[in-house]
């Protein structure tokens, strides 16, 4: 699939997105044949069985100026509405993204993208493997604006299957144009393999933007609250993942530029691994460590550990 979509991407790179897309973000032809056929059947059946949900997806308003113009920050976002439609909206959203876009009318690029981003955010939360091919194809599609690609990466990460792991780790490599998006996508994937891959990136990269993205991703996928939400059975894996995250984050939290340090420090506080303080203290003796940053971070972690919401 990746080879096909890359080839398609190269061939169509100079073509305007609207010309190639039957869906909002991609044309059906961007999907592997078997996945495409299966989805077409599923969507057709769902359209008959649940016409109201299709109508609801079609009628979301958050990306339309007459609606978002009333938001406190008047920017287009349909994410809440689409998430609110629940799992039943999966196939209507996949239909809109890859097969049959709603009428764009006079929507601007930002408004049109908001619809795609909202759908991808919602699809990721639904976490249904039927979305895999669409999300993967959108992630790799050419002529895609960054916000949509990033949303596709996050959705892929949330789906969290082996295909998504391969897709994202394949792009999370130095020099790959999709590297940053792929790292963010891996951050949504609560798997040990994802953690190790991103930790390796954080440990080796000299690129500040990549380091910041990797630190943020590790905080997300190592989130202690998120692991707790998965219940007791996930705790052992969670602890292992969080250890990988914390071990990679500690050095970055006390070295490098301010942006990286903030991202790494915040991420460490999300991971909340029991060894966090020891990992930070161990940085003291390493060349390039900012001793004040170590002290400050230790104090922050200690405050967090003592904190009891009251």
């Amino acid at each position: 699939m990746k080879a096909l979509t890359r080839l398609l991407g190269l061939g169509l790179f100079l073509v305007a997105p609207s010309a190639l897309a039957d869906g909002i973000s991609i044309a059906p032809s961007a999907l592997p044949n078997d996945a495409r056929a299966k989805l077409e059947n599923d969507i057709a059946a769902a359209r008959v069985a649940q016409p109201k949900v299709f109508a609801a997806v079609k009628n979301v308003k958050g990306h339309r100026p007459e609606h978002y113009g009333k938001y406190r920050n008047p920017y287009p976002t349909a994410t809440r509405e689409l998430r609110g439609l629940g799992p039943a909206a999966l196939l209507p959203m996949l239909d809109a993204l890859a097969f049959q876009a709603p009428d764009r009318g006079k929507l601007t690029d930002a408004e049109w993208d908001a619809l795609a981003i909202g759908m991808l955010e919602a699809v990721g939360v639904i976490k249904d493997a039927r979305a895999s091919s669409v999300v993967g194809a959108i992630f790799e599609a050419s002529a895609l604006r960054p916000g949509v690609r990033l949303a596709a990466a996050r959705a892929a990460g949330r789906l969290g299957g082996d295909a998504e792991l391969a897709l994202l780790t394949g792009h999370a490599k130095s020099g790959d144009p999709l590297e940053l998006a792929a790292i963010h996508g891996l951050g949504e994937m609560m798997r040990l393999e994802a953690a190790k891959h991103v930790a390796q990136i954080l440990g080796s990269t000299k690129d500040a933007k990549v380091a910041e993205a990797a630190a943020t991703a590790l905080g997300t996928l190592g989130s202690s609250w998120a692991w707790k939400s998965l219940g007791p059975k996930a705790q052992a894996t969670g602890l292992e993942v969080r250890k990988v995250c914390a071990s990679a984050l500690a050095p970055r939290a006390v070295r490098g530029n301010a942006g990286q340090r903030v991202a790494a420090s915040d991420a460490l506080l999300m991971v909340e691994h029991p060894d966090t303080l020891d990992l930070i203290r161990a940085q003291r003796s390493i060349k390039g460590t900012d001793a004040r940053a170590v002290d400050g971070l230790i104090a922050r972690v200690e405050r967090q550990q003592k904190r009891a919401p009251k």
Partner: protein
Amino acid sequence: MVRYRWLTSSVITLGVVACGSDSGGGGGSGPPDIIDVVADTSRDGLVNAEDPKDQDRENEWDATVGASFIANLDDDDMDGKRDCDDEIINGPADLADLAMFKVSAWPTAPADAEGVVTIDPEAAESVRIWRDNPDGSLALVLGSKGPCTSAADCSYALEYRFPQAEVMTGVTFRIEGRRFKGMPMPSLNPQDDGKKFLWSGFVDVGFMVAKKGTGERYATADVPDGIDRVKLRVAPWLMFGSLGLHDTLYSSGFYSPLVEGNTAAAQAAGVTYNPYASNPTQPGGWTDIWTEDFFQTGWTGFPGPNGTVQGMRIFNPRPWGRPPSQTPTPEQVKEYHPTRWIWGNPEMGRPAAALGPDRGAAEFYNPENFQKGNTQDSHGNHDLVPPHKDYKMGRILHGNKVMQNTVDFYTAQGVQGPPIVLDTTWLAVEHVDEFFHFVPAKTPLGWKLLVASPALMTKMLEDLKSKGQGSAVLHQGYGSNFEKSVDQSLADTKLVQWSQAADVKIQGHIDQMKMETGLTDADIIEIPTWFEDLGGEEKVAWNPGMVNMRMMGSVASIAKPFGPVIGGKDPFEEDIFARLGGPSSQLGADGQGLKVFFTDDWSYHDSLGEVHCATNESAPAPFAAGFWWETAK
């Protein structure tokens, strides 16, 4: 300078003219020679040439001495024009807004003398100065002349001369500011930021007695160079903040449940509340429902007699407005700019919602930024940390992407700045009022900080679960993004992950506040709040953001939480009553807790805001114990 001493020999010349010469004057042992200008340097609200406190150090300005005046931006005669924008005195109330300075009488002034009052060129475009005429009228004599709607219809007078007869009797002058320090004006080139900030905010007034025809100055022992000087400073603009003694509450009438909740709270607080129509076709109709965001309220004032402060409340608009059409015409952009709400528009039948007697209006951003800026320029992102440390009048707090014009203006006031800046870019709306709110408390500090707390929200849900209430449903009937049981909420991996990320950010903000203000944990009260993400670094309160509240004295209008109903009660409401409403909170003027009103703001919540965002308020000037001029800032 010290001037008011009886002189035994006052006649001095300065390449100049000697008083007591045969040109007249009171040399020798006769009456004194007097070359004196005096203002309210002592800050007692009186101008008294015989008061050494008005005379000593009259050319200085610090925490203990220095005269001041205000930018006269209200409309006492309600002609739709600010009082400083015309060349008349608009009645007794307007006159009271002008600060006085006097040229003392020199009864034995030489026959060839004339009085000369000067102001420094930098100040001329920022002030208008009148003199009292013998017939009781006033005449504009110094500073800006003309309507000054642009540089083309404004001229500047730096010097005013009056005849010997008036040197003998003395002359009273009145001064008003046309702007605050750092504030742009139409008569200044908007591109010229350098000029905008050039004015120090001070006016240096000089008085001399010149020999008519030659221009030579008379001098005395006390005024050896022949020029007496006094320094006056324009009063700063000061933000009210949530602890202001507010008397008026504003909001749109767009969502009746919000109006109902606010009405109850406003009545309890004794605050006037008349929501404006949201339909633009109705009288005063205004489509922007985010009332906190499109204007800010503050005040200005200078010393009045008997410890009073003479001043006015000031309304300033956000740079950008929300025209009802998505493809507005230039006329609609102007018609629905926040300036029109404040000033009104007689041509369209729109009354002024703010400008009026003791209610001033001013734009603080550069005019070239009209309809520019972004969400961070909304005033829900600009708040006042109440008094602390050296910031006796509080210190402004705002997000990190505010228009530089505005930041410069805040800093230029010198009293409530430089602002504390928090990185709010992790939020979809990017406003500080989404996670912080300041409330009155009977503590040494006098206030506490309420903070949105995802950790507390988690704990409360976990407590409910442990009490067997896992199936209780939050936000019943509000769609599957919001309607979740306690168990479902705690198992929603993304929701808790987003909330934890928000928690870390907020804890970072708290750390910064502790460092900047000296806050301690005892001064902080957590309010349960989870956050959802709309698409990467776009977080917004998931449950109604209760911290995003409206304070009216000790009365709070707080977003109704719509928590689970257990035994007929909402445990989140009960928690807030306990947390904020009881004596253990130390909150309120009497320390017995806030009077809490829950207001249904769901429609606003669904549009990314809450009660604070949906409302605004103002107070009569002055607000605050103590005086800004004593802050030495």
